[in-house]
């Protein structure tokens, strides 16, 4: 079933001789990526830096990142899943339907060459952007590339990792995992964590109108989400914690101005490879930190009579084994 095979960015710097960016434009969106981690750095086993590496860019259109690439493969829009699935078949020596290959925008020769390069790499890496993970097929496109990377390990060393958006998205994932067991799309309404992206993920909840209040931290959904989701946010009590005025704060019922984390508030941010980095404030802020605001809200809520979780009835997830010991 594949899996998720990854590494920290230092491994890429020290070892990677084949770097594939898929559905992303790092030259403009992650401008320091090439120079700090992937292309030009001289690593332990890549002493000549850029000369020791091959970069392949896969995208649906030419972007400024093409200039940095040795090979640019232009796939037709919404054909990424097909291309990756073809590569999975080709690396295993399986036959594919020639006529359909053409529709991906690549020739069978190009795909065969690509597959050969993937297999022959000493240490290969896929970095994938929202051009892959947010287009038709969504998470299955990411799953496809992760699976391809896992399967390539039958031939050589290969890893894959997503290029995350702005803010501390990775940190959010990490904390959710160790407190609830799941990375996102978690519901605590029954008094314990349940996970179902599509049901409990933010955009879906908002579009269906399934929530009647919102607390927003470190994000500006009104700038990025579909209009029906924004309309619902505007119609319910929405509370925003943000150092500045944002699209979301403008439609919110309450906006707490908070100190900017990393500038005037300390904390920890997780890099895209899940390395935790300490944030050291350099300025003082007249505003409270996010943490202080949340703690004060929590204290105020704690004064109300506790709303205990609903009684445990035939609970919605399958319950077979008993792990519960106390409580």
């Amino acid at each position, binding site marked *: *079933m594949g899996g998720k095979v990854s590494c920290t960015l230092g491994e890429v710097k020290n070892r990677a001789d084949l770097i594939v960016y898929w559905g992303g434009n790092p030259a403009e969106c992650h401008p320091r990526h090439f120079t700090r981690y992937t292309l030009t750095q001289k690593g332990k086993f890549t002493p000549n830096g850029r000369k020791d590496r091959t970069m392949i860019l896969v995208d649906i259109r030419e972007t400024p990142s093409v200039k940095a690439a040795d090979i640019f493969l232009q796939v037709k829009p*919404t054909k990424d*899943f*097909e291309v990756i*699935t*073809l590569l*999975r*078949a080709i690396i*295993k020596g*399986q*036959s*594919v*339907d020639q006529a*359909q*290959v053409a*529709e*991906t925008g690549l020739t069978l020769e190009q795909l065969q060459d690509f597959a050969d390069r993937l297999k022959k790499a000493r240490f290969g890496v896929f970095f994938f952007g929202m051009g892959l993970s947010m287009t*038709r*097929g969504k998470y*299955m496109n990411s799953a496809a590339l992760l699976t391809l990377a896992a399967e390539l390990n039958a031939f050589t060393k290969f890893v894959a990792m997503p290029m995350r958006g702005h803010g501390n998205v990775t940190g959010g994932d990490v904390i959710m995992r160790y407190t609830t067991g799941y990375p996102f799309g978690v519901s*605590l*309404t*029954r*008094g314990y964590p349940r*996970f*179902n*992206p*599509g*049901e409990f993920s933010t955009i879906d909840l908002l579009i269906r109108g*399934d*929530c*009647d209040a919102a607390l927003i931290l470190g994000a500006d959904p009104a700038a990025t989400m579909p209009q029906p989701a924004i309309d619902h946010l505007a119609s319910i009590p929405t509370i925003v914690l943000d150092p500045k005025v944002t699209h979301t704060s403008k439609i919110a019922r309450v906006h707490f101005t908070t100190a900017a984390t990393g500038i005037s508030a300390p904390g920890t941010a997780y890099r895209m490879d899940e390395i935790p980095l300490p944030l050291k404030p350099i300025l003082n802020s007249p505003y409270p930190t996010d943490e202080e605001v949340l703690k004060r809200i929590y204290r105020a809520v704690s004064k109300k009579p506790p*709303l205990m*979780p*609903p*009684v445990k*009835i*035939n*609970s*919605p997830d*399958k319950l077979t084994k008993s792990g519960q010991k106390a409580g």
Partner: protein
Amino acid sequence: MSKTVLTLKVQPNIPLEAELLSPDIIAPLGNQEIAALPVILGKRQKRLDDFFHIEGDGSETLEIHGDLGRVKWIGRGMTRGNILVHGNAGMHLGAYMKGGSIEVGGNASDWVGGEMKGGSIHIRGNAGGQLGAAYRGSLSGMKGGTILVEGTAGIEVGMRMRRGVIAVRGRVKDFAGLQMKGGTIVLMSGAEIRTGAWMVRGTIISLEPLKLMPTFEFACAYNPVFMGIYAKSLSSKGFNIPYKMANGCYRRFQGDSSVPGKGEILVWNPNQ
């Protein structure tokens, strides 16, 4: 035959989780006990009669009236009896069910029959995505039973299903039969893209031409013997699939070679 009739009197403004709406739970109870059954509105526990008017004592047949589009988990894990919903049904209808039958007059939401093992579900309107699918991370979707949909269905129909039958009269969206491991999906009006992607085993039958993945290869054109048996069984439920040589034949495609898998997609090719 006696029946229990529930009528929605208060429309919930946020999702209402009502997994106790199942003949297994309700049949042995009296009217007042049914009324007191817990349901969960958001994070708050309520009584069933806060939302429903309840007629009759418990029975094997549960008739529910109203727009239950926000009512989740109806018939969860049921093993017997019947549920008739005169209206729409919310997410996870008949999830994990093992027996009995559910019929919905209106539309149903996502995850109808998620990981079900037996029984039958019939949706008169449209269904959402993930019909009979595996919940996230699970290795297998439905392992038995039947899901029939008269309208359309969403993405990932029969994802990772292992056994059982899903038939959809309307068109379905992307990824029908994704990572399928067995069982049968019948698409009366075809599908959008990526049908059968990453399938390992199992059969997808389409009466309309399909846009296939490049990792499926044409094998042969024929009329498999088992189609006659399928056709008879499905025609009793109003789904007529052709199986006679005189009318045409099936083009058989095998894949998904990326796995590599031995699934089959049979696309009906009528005599012109």
